[in-house]
């Protein structure tokens, strides 16, 4: 280690996607801080206040769930430190269960990790824990961390024991229900269940990015020769790309944030620890030797000296391409970009721009700035390819890989709303309507933007009409639950026993896009007119995949070609909605006649029913 090396880099390397950081828990991190002598990275304990309030003010038990790396232990330690200052020595302690006096006459039992305590301890704790959760022992509260599977297994095993009390079964069902419906409390239980995998927010992401990127330790780099002329240090270069500029926020960082948000809506939650892995890998990733996937200062200087920036490409690093496939898979954050298909999805416009440089405006938008990973990297490949063409397979392969790299870079750099719609960054992903999905989400959250929401409702209605009926209809004013009589393997059909549901009306049922309060996803449902009430009608939860499916179908794709799962989901929605509406509205007229409709297309592509009255 030479004098110019920055200790912060070595410290950050311990957070990277390397084998030793698999077991990186709270304790190891503090150890690393001591070793490297740099200020620790503080990550937010997002639910700490809720934990405090629940235990201290409400007097309820707390269970923290979430996957590894979500900060369950961290939350518990923070609570312990704040509540019992001066007793750091007792943490974590030898025993699996820590007993403390929360207040006079009130015991707090902390189970740091349910999976870490022995079967005997679990057994011993079961009765008291159950009683506490059922609210039978207010003098004793629990603070427990466990991932959801363990938690369920714990209560399921208890419920299945011979002679188990009926309350065990109830407890199991209640907790299963809370996890499934993502509820934090349930009537009759003295419990708040915080699922830390669901506490994702853009604030958390920014907090972590800021903690790393604006760490005071970067100041040590000022003394480094590479900061003063010469080829730029790749670490500093990558850092600069993630830092917000004076007047322009970093589009790289913005796109990462959006991708994570989309992933969360797809139930692909990224734990906090994995966010650290991501930012560190973008900064330090190095693709030369997969056994040493992260840069240190010495290697970074070497790369800069030889201009080997192809190895340190931050856009590839974001996708984890500097890692061996098995290591990449073990770090789920990289899966986010893999699932988007970034680098592999494209369209003619963008590929023509990359290969031919046309249209020029778009080309300049992409290549005018940041030459190191753009024009400088790509030009040699392009030249070789045009010189040698497809004659040599090696050339084609390398060019294809360079093209993928540039598509990736374009995805992270293109503006959200470019002049040409086909140049939207989301066209470079599987979720071509990902940006629109986020727009819709924002409009629903802000409860404004009827002018944003309405066009989506129209398209979704058209998509549903096409998927249900199998006809290329343009009808977006009424939703027709078309199908077959009985179950068939091809669910699309032209029969409907109820009339179409108006997209907008005040006199009858209508179609409505809302925000599901629990999952925070857009939901398409059937709304009753104000003067009516009835049992709830199941609505269609729009995950990004389903949204994508319906938007693509609305814009011309064939329903069967995209996703069987989506097809099934809308079929279920159609069946249960039809049943509900049939039960709610007596379809018979005064003569006891009921109508069946065979659907066809009108001259303007609208759906036209031929009615048979019976």
């Amino acid at each position: 280690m030479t004098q110019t090396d920055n200790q912060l880099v070595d410290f950050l390397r311990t957070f990277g996607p390397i084998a030793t950081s698999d077991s990186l828990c709270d304790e190891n991190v503090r150890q690393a801080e001591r070793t490297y002598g740099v200020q620790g990275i503080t990550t937010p304990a997002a639910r700490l206040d809720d934990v405090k309030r629940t235990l201290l003010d409400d007097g309820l038990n707390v269970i923290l769930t979430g996957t590894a790396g979500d900060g369950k232990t961290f939350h518990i330690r923070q609570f312990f430190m704040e509540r019992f200052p001066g007793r750091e020595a007792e943490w974590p302690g030898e025993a699996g269960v820590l007993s403390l006096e929360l207040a006079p006459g009130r015991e707090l039992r902390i189970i740091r990790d349910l999976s870490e305590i022995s079967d005997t301890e679990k057994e011993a704790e079961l009765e008291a824990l159950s009683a506490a959760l059922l609210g039978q022992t207010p003098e004793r509260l629990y603070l427990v961390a466990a991932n959801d599977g363990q938690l369920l297994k714990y209560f399921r095993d208890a419920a299945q024991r011979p002679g188990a009390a009926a309350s065990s079964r109830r407890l199991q069902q209640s907790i299963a229900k809370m996890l499934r419906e993502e509820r934090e409390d349930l009537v009759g239980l003295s419990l708040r269940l915080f699922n830390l995998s669901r506490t994702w927010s853009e604030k958390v992401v920014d907090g972590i990015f800021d903690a790393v990127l604006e760490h005071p330790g970067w100041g040590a780099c000022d003394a480094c020769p590479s900061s003063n002329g010469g080829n730029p240090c790749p670490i500093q270069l990558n850092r600069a790309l993630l830092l917000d500029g004076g007047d322009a926020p970093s589009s790289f960082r913005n796109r990462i944030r959006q991708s994570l948000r989309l992933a969360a809506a797809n139930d692909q939650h990224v734990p906090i620890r994995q966010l650290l892995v991501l930012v560190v890998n973008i900064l330090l990733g190095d693709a030369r030797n997969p056994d040493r996937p992260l840069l240190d200062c010495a290697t970074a200087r070497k790369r800069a000296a030889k201009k080997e920036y192809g190895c340190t490409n931050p856009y590839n690093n974001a996708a984890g391409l500097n890692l061996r496939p098995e290591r990449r898979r073990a770090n789920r954050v990289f899966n986010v970009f893999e699932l988007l298909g970034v680098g592999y999805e494209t369209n003619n416009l963008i590929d023509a721009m990359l290969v031919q440089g046309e249209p020029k405006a778009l080309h300049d938008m992409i290549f005018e700035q940041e030459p190191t990973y753009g024009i400088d990297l790509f030009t040699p490949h392009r030249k070789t390819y045009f010189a040698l063409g497809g004659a040599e397979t090696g050339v084609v392969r390398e060019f294809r890989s360079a093209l993928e790299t540039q598509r990736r870079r374009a995805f992270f750099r293109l503006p959200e709303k470019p002049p040409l719609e086909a140049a939207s960054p989301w066209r470079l992903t599987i979720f071509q309507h990902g940006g629109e999905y986020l727009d819709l989400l924002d409009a629903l959250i802000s409860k404004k933007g009827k002018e944003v929401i309405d066009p989506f409702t129209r398209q979704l209605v058209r998509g549903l009409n096409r998927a249900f009926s199998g006809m290329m209809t343009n009808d977006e004013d009424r939703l027709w639950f078309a199908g077959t009589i009985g179950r068939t393997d091809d669910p699309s059909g032209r029969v409907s026993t109820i009339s179409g549901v108006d997209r907008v009306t005040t006199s009858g049922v209508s179609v409505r896009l809302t925000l599901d309060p629990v999952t925070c996803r857009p939901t398409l449902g059937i709304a009753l007119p104000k003067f009516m009430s009835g049992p709830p009608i199941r609505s269609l939860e729009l995950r990004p995949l389903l949204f994508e499916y319906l938007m693509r179908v609305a814009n011309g794709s064939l329903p069967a070609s995209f996703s069987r799962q989506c097809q099934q989901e809308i079929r279920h929605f159609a069946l249960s909605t039809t049943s509900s509406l049939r039960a709610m509205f007596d379809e018979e007229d005064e003569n006891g006649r009921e109508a069946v409709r065979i659907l066809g297309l009108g001259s303007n592509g609208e759906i036209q029913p031929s009615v048979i009255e019976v």
Partner: protein
Amino acid sequence: MAAKNHHLQLAEGAMRVPETQKMGSVKLWCEYAIWGLLFYDDQSPWLTLTECLHICFDRKRRSLPIFEGVKQVEGPQHETVAYGIPLNNQLRHLLFRDKEISRIASGKAADDKAKWSAWFATVDRDYEGLELRNLQASFDNFQAMARSVELLRTSEIEAFTSKRWTSRHVLPLGSAMVFPDVNSDNSLDRKFMRRTGEMLYLMLNRSSRAGEVEALLDARLLGTNSVWNRLAGRLAGPDSDADANTTIGYLPMPTHRSYDRLADDWVALLSLSSIPVENVLDPLERVSGLIQALYILERAQDTVGDGVALPPFFLDVVGATGNNAIRKLSSNQYKRHRTLPFEAAESFIDAFAASEEWKAVLASDAGRKEAADLLAKRFFWSPQRNPNPDTMPSPENQLAELRADSQRAKGHHIGATFHNHVKQIGLLRTARRAGTWYAPNDAFLEALVLANVTTPMEFGDFLDLIMRRYNIVVGPEETRTAFQITSGALPAPLADLKENERRLEERLRVLGFVDRKSDDCAFVVNPFHDVEQTAGTDELVHA
């Protein structure tokens, strides 16, 4: 006719065969004694359900209780249910024999009157004596009639088969939508509908939840006059009242665990009020077929009586090609299942061979004649032979001959019924050269979920439930339990079994039945379980 059925050899615990039972086609009373008369291989599970509903619709029409249970007169007495099915030939003709309606409807004739007369002309030409002019009064115009026919044609079940027009059926959604299986003379020859549905009816009738099934059937199907049924009724002609009459077949056991299981599934499926009843029939047909297949195995196992656990249905969900451990295990289970009925027949005859009356025959000087008489009486078995007792084979040889007959696997037999049914419900796959093994199709998986899941259920609980209820096994944990492995190796590599389980979850997810919460936790969901009821489980905690 003398009381002959009275003398038939019975399985242990079985009820006597009523004298009303027609025995005309019975050549050997062995299979029927164990399982019932009759589980027919050429009757698909769809037609089984349909036949069962025939009985229910008939009883509803005659204002009889749908299920009366088993009467107790010095022990349980077998039901003697007689029922009739309207011939409904006019509707059947329109749906399955007519070839002109669509042509004329889409033809050039602009005038409605012209269309009607063009059509009547073809009817007069092609079907002498068929009178359909009544239809003109029932519909506003020809087009409306044509559309109705076209619509109802889409509700045909098993439309891919090329059966005669008098053996084709639509979804049994009302009394106007059922037809008997007759020949061209309108006589009930039961080519594809031969009592297997009567067995289903009897199983339900003897279940402890028959009352609940009746109430739900009435609410969802029998007591409703759905639009489809009304449409069918309007197309039906005056002959819809002419009945084909018959009496019900024989099912030996007054009670059996599979009866209650069947009723549980019917209650579960018919309770799903947020799915239209026409969409419930497909899963209903499949789980009913599954329960009947299980019944065949369980009755075999009971008859063999060796106390060995029933070999599970091990499913190959991975679907890898070639000779892999998962498919092999699945295929072996199938082979094991196929041998069970033969072992049961063997045991049934063994029990007779050990009886005092047979021992007396063996000891008798006139044993040859006595043996022939006794075998005829008990087994309805009288092979053609010289009536001279001296030329008859020895009693031992006669019984050996009967045994050989009972083991014959040609023609219609219970093994073929088992095979066809598990295949038709989508549980079994056969492939040329690759063999035969258990691999579920999507519709079968859907039926399993709909019949077994109410509020969301953990995936592990679901696997456990289908093992306990149907002996269906997929993953390592259930394999260990069902194959009763306490120590030692699993019957297939652990990693393969895990993959098998993972693939099932993936299949269910694609079908829209799995909600995965994290790496560790996934729920199987039934999207048709009532929204309201889900919300109501809050009460559980207070209970």
